[in-house]
């Protein structure tokens, strides 16, 4: 087990001024694991992901990837943002290829990978479209392909499907699982939708707020590969219920707080 640890988080604390956003997060994530993070709004999920991505620095504690402490962004991690954040002046092909362009890699292998990924996310034939010519779902798939194109060991996804309608979202969930089964990358997936977390994950991290901390880890031992129908099984529903009970109180508190503002 020790040999296959991908990410180690120890004593991670983050403060913005006086605000303690994350307190003493300790955990480790295995190679090829699919982890979802759920928790009420403002509990520091995005902040956690950004620290792992190297876009934000920790106030205390460390995060190490393959034993090396993270101190900035790198090609070993691919970030999928909540908004698709495609560059409007680049066509789909060069949006997907931007990671390798930044790294200065122009090999036939890289080009083949880019092409393969476009196929994988079902956007073959759209190489020379501009982002504005694509639907939200298509753009989000480009966003995913772009992160995968640097062939990262660790995929960081911050509510990547939240802008999509319910049907597209379910399709994207199965697509993501299919892609993940292919490469078995380690994934950290933030979502507000508990059933999404259960459907996708090996383990679900439940965060609590004030200050943000890792409250509980729920193992999801549903068989893989999973189809959408699994969402209607009693085991699935029970897991969703259990997680919801864990965060219900916090979510209510944060909603009331937001209304009071």
């Amino acid at each position: 087990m020790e040999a296959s640890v991908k990410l180690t988080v120890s004593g991670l604390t983050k403060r913005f001024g006086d605000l303690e956003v994350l307190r003493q997060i300790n955990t480790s994530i295995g190679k090829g694991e699919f982890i979802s993070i759920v928790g009420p709004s403002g509990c520091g999920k995005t902040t956690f992901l950004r620290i792992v991505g190297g876009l934000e620095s920790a106030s205390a504690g460390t995060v190490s990837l393959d034993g090396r402490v993270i101190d900035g962004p790198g090609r070993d991690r691919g970030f999928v943002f909540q908004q698709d954040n495609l560059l409007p002046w680049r066509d789909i092909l060069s949006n997907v290829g931007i990671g390798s362009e930044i790294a200065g890699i122009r090999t036939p292998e890289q080009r083949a990978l880019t092409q393969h990924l476009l196929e994988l996310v079902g956007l073959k034939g759209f190489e020379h479209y501009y982002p504005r010519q694509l639907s939200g779902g298509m753009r989000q798939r480009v966003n995913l392909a772009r992160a995968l194109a640097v062939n990262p060991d660790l995929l960081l996804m911050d509510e990547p499907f939240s802008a999509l309608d319910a049907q597209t979202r379910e399709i994207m969930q199965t697509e993501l699982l299919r892609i993940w089964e292919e490469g078995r990358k380690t994934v950290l997936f933030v979502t507000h939708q508990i059933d999404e977390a259960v459907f996708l994950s090996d383990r679900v991290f439940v965060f609590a707020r004030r200050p943000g901390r890792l409250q509980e880890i729920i193992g999801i031992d549903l068989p893989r590969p999973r189809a959408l129908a699994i969402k209607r099984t009693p085991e699935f529903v029970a897991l969703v219920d259990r997680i919801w009970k864990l965060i219900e109180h916090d979510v209510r508190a944060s909603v009331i707080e937001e209304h009071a503002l």
Partner: protein
Amino acid sequence: MSIDAIQRSERRESPGLLRKWASRHGWAVGSVVTGLAIWEIAARGFVASKLFLASPSQIVAAIGPLWRSGELQVHFYTSALEFVLGYGAACILGIALGFLIASSRRCKQALQPWVSGLYATPTVALAPLFILWFGVGIFSKIVVVALLVIFPVIINTETGLRQTPQNLVETVRSFGASRRQIFYMVSLPAALPFIFAGLRLGIGRGLIGVVVAELFGARAGLGQLIQQSAETFNMPALFVGVVVLAVAGIVLTSGFVWLEKRLVPWGQD
């Protein structure tokens, strides 16, 4: 496809194209034609003296002699040269200054008051001064044009570079982009539409600069033609100058829009 087939398909297409053109420009053409007709009627019927208004037909008739004597070409060439040199210099310098202001806090603090102040000042009013300083030749006009064009260019370049979408910066940063790469991949393309808007604004201001500077004293140029025609109450010749300027403005602006569509193809539908 054989040449014959191409010609046939072209023939088949042409009425469709004509209809498309008519539906897109029909109202504009109609409105211009109506305006010219009213102008013609008013000039002939209501304004008794030729000294006050020239009709479109008189203006067209005036072009001939001005062209044959070579006068019109000289005026046009002179003004065009002044415009091109002044506008070109202002664009290069303005974009450079815009970059400088956007990239350095100190430069911004040092230059901002001058830029804002001079942009708000009607600098055309200084045209006589420049003629006094630099003479009646083309140099004084180039300076006036450049002065009028440069400020919108500076301001738009700077604004564009400052409006860099932070979420996109973050995105390329997550791939490990350097500052240089962030600039070329995000800041610069994001600023392009703004810079273009500044350059487009500059066209109109530059043309005003040419004419006004020439009105205050010049050897040749469309402004000089207008001024000299006004002094001799030669209304048709005066309007020839005005019409040439108007056409130049329209052509330059639409040429610019065309260029913009090619250089900033992600912007429009």
